[in-house]
């Protein structure tokens, strides 16, 4: 009775295995010894084993390491992490939108003003200023020529030193004290335009 010849079934993975001829050289010296004398893995050098394992993909290695149950657990954990992550992002976005909406609402209700706006004044503020000037006028029935001279000199000095904000309030007072003097009112108009241009939120002036 003759034994049927040994048949080698090549694993498809083996086709992709690249073996450095340096490591496989000793094996080629040994002739094939049939089923009994086949080379055992233990015969392979440790570096060759490492190399052979390294050729597999990381996922395949992970597959090989984990049991089916563990694999499923890991996958469920990944899916749950994704869902929770997305949910958390959506929640944070919603909170940010709500906060922004609240801030806009507060701005609309409170309408805080910039320092320049405060200076330029809304209608109410202007009315208050006019009222204050009227009270001042009542207190000072007539401005003496020397006082007017001082006021004008002070105003010109403020403009000369480019202190437009300070000059504006000063010339507003002058315009109220001397309503017949058109130049004071004109200076107020130009100063307002200049301060408006200096405001960072406004568009650039010509």
């Amino acid at each position, binding site marked *: 009775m003759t034994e049927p010849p040994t048949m080698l079934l090549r694993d498809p993975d083996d086709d992709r295995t690249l073996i450095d001829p340096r490591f496989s050289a000793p094996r080629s010296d040994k002739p094939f010894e049939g089923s009994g004398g086949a080379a055992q893995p233990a015969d392979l050098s440790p570096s060759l084993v490492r190399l052979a394992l390294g050729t597999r993909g990381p996922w395949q290695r992970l597959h090989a390491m984990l049991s*089916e149950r563990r694999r499923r657990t890991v996958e469920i954990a990944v899916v749950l992490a994704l869902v929770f992550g997305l949910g958390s992002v959506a929640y944070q976005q919603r909170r940010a939108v709500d906060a*922004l909406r609240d801030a806009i609402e507060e701005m609309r209700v409170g309408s805080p003003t910039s320092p320049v706006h405060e200076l330029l004044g809304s209608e109410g503020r202007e009315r208050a200023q006019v009222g204050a000037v009227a009270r001042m006028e009542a207190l000072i029935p007539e401005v003496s020529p020397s006082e007017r001279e001082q006021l004008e000199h002070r105003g010109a000095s403020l403009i000369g030193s480019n202190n437009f904000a300070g000059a504006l309030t000063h010339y507003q007072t002058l315009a109220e004290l001397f309503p017949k003097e*058109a130049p004071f009112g004109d200076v107020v108009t130009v100063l307002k335009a200049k301060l408006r241009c200096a405001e960072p939120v406004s568009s650039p002036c010509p």
Partner: protein
Amino acid sequence: MRRASEQPVSVTSRVIVVLSAVALASCERPPDAERPFAIAFVVESDPGVRVPGARVFIDGVPAGETDSNGRVNAEINGQSGQQLGISHDCPDGHDAPFERKALRLRKFEGVDRSRPPTMEITLTCRPLKRLAAFVVRASDGPDLPILLDGKPVARTNGSGVAHFSIRGAPGTEYIVELETRERPRLRPRSPTHLFTLPDADEIFVINQAFDLEKEPRRRGRRPTRITKIE
């Protein structure tokens, strides 16, 4: 063995399908054929200076006239992406630019859901005349007449300060003279300053220092000598 290894892949693919479906569901529907668009037109002469009484046209059709706040609110029915031509007429004393503005309608969501979002378009009406305010600071130059292009407009006060203003077309040149004829000992004599009005309201500050020339010393008359010529 193979089936066991394929099982997790199918779970992953299901997850991907579900996530894709969620992503697709979050996308917006295609825009409707026609929708109302709220547009506010603001007409300004300078940044922040509103112009009332300007008329706004959309594709030649009047949209309205600006109120005291320089604003016209309009609602247009159109498609998103549609382009409209915007033009406007300015009130007296203002000049409108010749080129028409093109407006493309865009659908967008406002942060405040209680109000419909409004597009704001700013249009310009340039003033034909600009305001020039002059502030004269003449040190040691009290009570001096100020001439603007040769005509008296003001007089410096006791501390040498004077204010006057004028309106003119942008680019106008003004010659300001501080006349010293009444005080001939002031130096320099009748200094002049040249100013050009820009395309904006402007304040011109004239800083002029004067020196008072000392009076020439009067020498006493020398006594006449009588020289005897022999």
